[in-house]
Structure formats: structure tokens, C-alpha cells
């Protein structure tokens, strides 16, 4: 599904709530707990943590480990043999869909990042003013955000279909927009952007509202144009939002899976790493080690951004 848009917070420093408790005051509070309370607190921590460890971290590590083995998914676990980087070598040299899939993933990232995200930001800037119909404009643009990407795929089928699609009727062409490998990646990108732009607009609208108005006034008094004010002052001040938008964009482009899967299960010009992994695991020929090698590559790509993002958040948390 959609990237779980992990919008993550900026710390509430001075947001009008109570000042953050100084670390010193919180220290040792655990020791004051009675026996029963300690049990409750432990349960409150352990159960959610187990969910995350067992269903996310363990599988993530297992994927990495399995990628170095020859396991076919059927034999008993004790017959697993390590085979070094063989799976990776096979993926890179012996598996034709891999490089196109990687290229498609990067195209998704590039288009979302360089085109869709700036459009979303631009619309947010236009709409961040008191004006008539503003609510209507906003609602129309972020309406697609509530729809699943799978549904987005279906909705656009009416426009892209070869025989009955609107696009061919208007252009007097006979193109199968979802099927033709020359076009289908772009068709999918338009449909994804339709949803992504609204999402980004929403995030930036929230970000712009939080920007202190006096900053703009000061800039206006100094004779800065609106464009200058935005790029030199407003944009840098929105750094926390920019980080979130970057992460959301990267994660969305890695997870473009849903849309592509409903179109044609990621074949014929729409290969993505995620669809290859899925096809290799769930499909008839399940090649576990092989699929895991691609899964690990996916993890590696996303971990660069995840680490950057999480350490950014933790740094701000620690500052409190």
C-alpha cells in the first residue's frame, strides 16, 4: 500500500505545552515503582516491542542472512548452506529483469522527487493564503490521498485502456498505455503522482502554517520579493518538513508495488525490485536465497534514508 507516510514530528519545544521535563527530574523514577507497577510497565514495554522485533526486525535480519544461502524454501532449516555472494552475482549477471527493475525504481524516485514533489510544494505555496475557494482547491487536490494505490491503478485504467480509454479517444491513438513497455512506466508515474502531489501539498501546507509570520514581514520590509522570501527564508526554516518529505518520497518510490501489481504484476516494462522479490517468493518457482538477495538490496537502499532520518529525529529528541 501506500507508503505509510511516516511523518515524524518535530519536537514540541516551546509549543505552548508544558516545558519538557528536565532529564534529571525524570531519572530514577523507575525505582520508585512498586512491584505491581513494575510488572505493568514491563508488560507495556515488552508486548509492543515483541511485535516489532518478531515481525519486522527478525524478518529483516533473516532476509539478509538467507541471501547468502542456497535455501530453496522447502528443505529443513539445518540443510541450509552458505554460498557467499553467489545469489548476488546471479542477480546481477544472470537475471535479465534485475537491471531494468533497478532502473525503474530509480526513475520512480527521480520523477517523484524532481517533478511531483516540487509541484506539491508549489501548490501548497499558492494555497497558503487567505482566499476564496481555498478549501475546495485543497480538498480536490488531496482527495486521492485517501485512496489506495491499488484503487488508483483501477481508476486510471478507464483513461489508459487501449480500446475504451479516454486518452486514446481524445488523441485518436491506439496505444495500450498500461501494456506498452514504451509508455507504461510513464502512465504509472502519472497515476502515482496524482496521489503523491496531494500528499506533499498537505505536508507543506502544515509546514507553511507553522512558519512564523514575522519572518516574512521582516523580509518584505527589507524589499525581498515573494520568491526570494520563499527560497531564502521560508524554505530553510521548514527543514524538518523537508526531511519528512524526502523520506516519504523515497519510501513511496520504493513501495510503488501496489499500483504496478494491479496493472500487470510488474511485467513487461513495469518491473520493480519489489515485484521481482514477490514473484520469486510467492510465484511457482520459489527461489528463496535469490529473492532474499534482492530484498537485501532493497533494504540497503532504504536504510540509507532511514538511518539519516532516524538519527535526525533522535538528535532532536536528545536535545530536549
Amino acid at each position: 500500500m501506500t507508503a505509510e507516510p511516516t511523518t515524524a514530528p518535530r519536537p514540541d519545544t516551546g509549543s505552548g505545552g508544558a516545558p519538557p521535563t528536565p532529564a534529571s527530574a525524570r531519572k530514577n523514577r523507575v525505582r520508585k515503582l512498586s512491584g505491581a507497577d513494575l510488572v505493568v510497565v514491563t508488560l507495556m514495554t515488552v508486548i509492543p516491542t515483541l511485535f516489532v522485533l518478531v515481525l519486522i526486525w527478525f524478518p529483516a535480519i533473516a532476509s539478509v542472512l538467507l541471501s547468502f544461502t542456497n535455501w530453496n524454501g522447502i528443505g529443513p532449516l539445518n540443510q541450509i548452506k552458505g554460498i557467499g555472494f553467489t545469489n548476488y552475482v546471479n542477480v546481477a549477471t544472470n537475471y535479465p529483469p534485475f537491471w531494468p527493475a533497478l532502473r525503474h525504481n530509480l526513475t520512480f524516485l527521480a520523477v517523484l522527487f524532481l517533478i511531483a514533489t516540487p509541484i506539491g510544494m508549489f501548490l501548497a505555496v499558492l494555497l497558503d493564503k487567505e482566499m476564496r475557494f481555498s478549501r475546495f482547491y485543497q480538498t480536490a487536490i488531496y482527495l486521492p490521498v485517501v485512496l489506495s494505490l491499488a484503487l488508483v491503478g483501477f481508476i486510471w485504467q478507464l483513461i489508459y485502456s487501449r480500446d475504451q480509454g479516454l486518452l486514446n479517444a481524445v488523441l485518436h491513438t491506439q496505444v495500450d498505455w498500461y501494456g506498452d513497455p514504451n509508455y507504461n512506466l510513464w502512465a504509472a508515474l502519472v497515476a502515482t503522482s496524482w496521489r503523491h502531489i496531494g500528499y506533499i501539498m498537505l505536508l507543506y501546507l502544515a509546514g507553511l502554517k507553522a512558519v512564523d509570520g514575522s519572518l516574512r514581514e521582516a523580509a518584505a520590509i527589507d524589499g525581498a520579493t515573494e520568491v526570494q522570501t520563499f527560497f531564502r527564508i521560508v524554505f530553510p526554516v521548514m527543514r524538518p518538513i523537508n526531511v519528512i518529505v524526502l523520506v516519504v518520497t523515497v519510501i513511496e518510490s520504493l513501495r510503488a508495488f501496489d499500483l504496478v501489481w494491479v496493472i500487470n504484476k510488474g511485467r513487461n516494462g513495469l518491473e520493480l525490485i519489489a515485484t521481482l522479490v514477490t514473484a520469486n517468493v510467492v510465484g511457482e518457482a520459489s527461489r528463496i536465497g535469490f529473492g532474499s538477495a534482492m530484498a537485501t538490496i532493497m533494504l540497503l537502499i532504504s536504510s540509507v534514508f532511514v538511518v539519516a532520518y532516524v538519527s535526525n529525529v533522535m538528535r532532536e529528541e536528545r536535545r530536549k
Partner: protein
Amino acid sequence: MTTTLSPDARVKRAPGRRIVLHVFLWIVALSWLFPLGWAVLNSFRDYAYTAINGYVSFGGFTLQNYVNAWRQGDFGLHFWNSAVITVPAVVITLFLASCMAFVLARFSFRFNLALLGVFLAANLLPPQALLVPVYRMFRAVSLPDWLSSSGSLLNNQLGVILVNIAFQLGFCTFVLSNYMKTIPAEIYESARVDGASVTRQFFQLTLPLCRPPLAALATLQVTWIYNEFFWATVLLQSGDKFPITSSLNSLQGQFFTDYNLLSAGSVLAMLPVLVIFFALQRQFVSGLTLGSTKG
């Protein structure tokens, strides 16, 4: 010279500029609504009519597509399946996230920050990368018949619920713990002096105070889990267990696709989220942006 003139110039230019802006925004807004409107419009049209006259025509209105889609797509069953997955997943996610957030915000363990990192990063990993082990693990778990007709967590809605909970916990914990940190510590101190146990503090102090973020997160989570496609599709193999989002594929024929029927199915499938969107728009939007700005 120009700077002194500019305020005047701006006032004079303003009406023209505003009209251009509005025209532009109307065009954008209408073109954004168009794909959706097109689907809704054609869902009410007879396939035979549009096949002959083309879609760029007018007429052939009918409700039959909805009747057929409901019957062929077995929507009653799949709506039920969606509810069976979504409701428990959202309730458990919010409860466990509140517990975790409470501990993170209220007590200072040495691992506090590290734990937050563990939860947050987990939320961002691409699900497909975890598929192999989760799939095998679920297949290996044997369950008694009353819990699972398939005998394991695979091909079982319980498995989908568990994965959804794990994936959503990070985001909810993060948002909630940030909110809980703004609750003054003095409130807890006086509760403690009055002899309130941690359980009572949690249920009678923290949770009631967290109503706003919980409402926003609940709205958002219902939408997300209802929309969840990947795990439901790969973990449930028999079509009769699919939630709506994964079951739409069955309306798509292998050789022939009736797009009007498909539109009707899509409109039916999006009804719940559209209702949520219009009824609880403020909750939805604040849920999405809750994390990203203060308050």
C-alpha cells in the same frame, strides 16, 4: 525608486494576478477531480451503450453495474473481511502504541531513545523486503482449528492483522509519545501521591488527555489498513478471505474487461474511505500532519 513604487504597483496589479491565480487553481482542482469523476460517471453507464457510442458520448445511464459488481465481486463478503481485519488491527495498534508511548514519555529508561529508534525505523522498511521470512514463519506456525481454517498463520486473516499492527506501531507510538510529553509531570506526581497505580494513571489520566491524537490516528489508521494491499494479497491465498482492496482484481477479466463494471466496483470499494474523508476530514488531515509539525 522601484522599491518605493512597488507597494502601489502591487495594489494595482493585485486584481489581475488574483484572477489568474484563481483560474489556474480551478483548472488544477478540476483536473484533479476528473479521473475520479470519470470513474463515477461511467460506473452509471451501460457497457453496451458505451461500447457502441464510445465513452465520449452521453446516455445509457443505468444502475445495473452496481448490482452486477456487488454480486460478481462478492462485495458483502469482502466488506466483512475488510472489517474483520481493520477493526481489530486499529484497536490493538492504538492500544499497544499508547502503552509504549506512555512508558517512553513518562519514564526515563536508559534505552528509551534507542527503543524509539527501533520503532521508528521499523515503520520505514519496505514490506516486500521482509516477505520471505514472514511468509515462511507464518506457514510454520500451527494453530488449532478454531483459530484458523488453514491450520497456520498463512492464509489466515489473523496473520494479516498481526503484520499490520507491527507495521503501524512505530508511527503511532512516535506521534503519541510526542503528545504525551507535553502532559505536565506534576499531574502524575499528584496522582502518585494520591496512591494511583500506573494502570490507573494510564487509563484515567493519560488516555483521556490523549483523545485528540487518538481520534486523528484512528481515522488515519482505518484508512491505511483498509487500503493495505500487499500483505493481504500475498498472505491470503484464497480469494474468499481477501479484503475489498485485494479482491478488486477479481472484477478484472483475463481477456475481456468491462470497465464500467470495474468503475462501479472501484466506487463501491472507495465509499468507506470517502465517507471517512468527508465526515472526518479534519481528523484525517491532522493525523497526516500531526507528526510533522508541532501540535
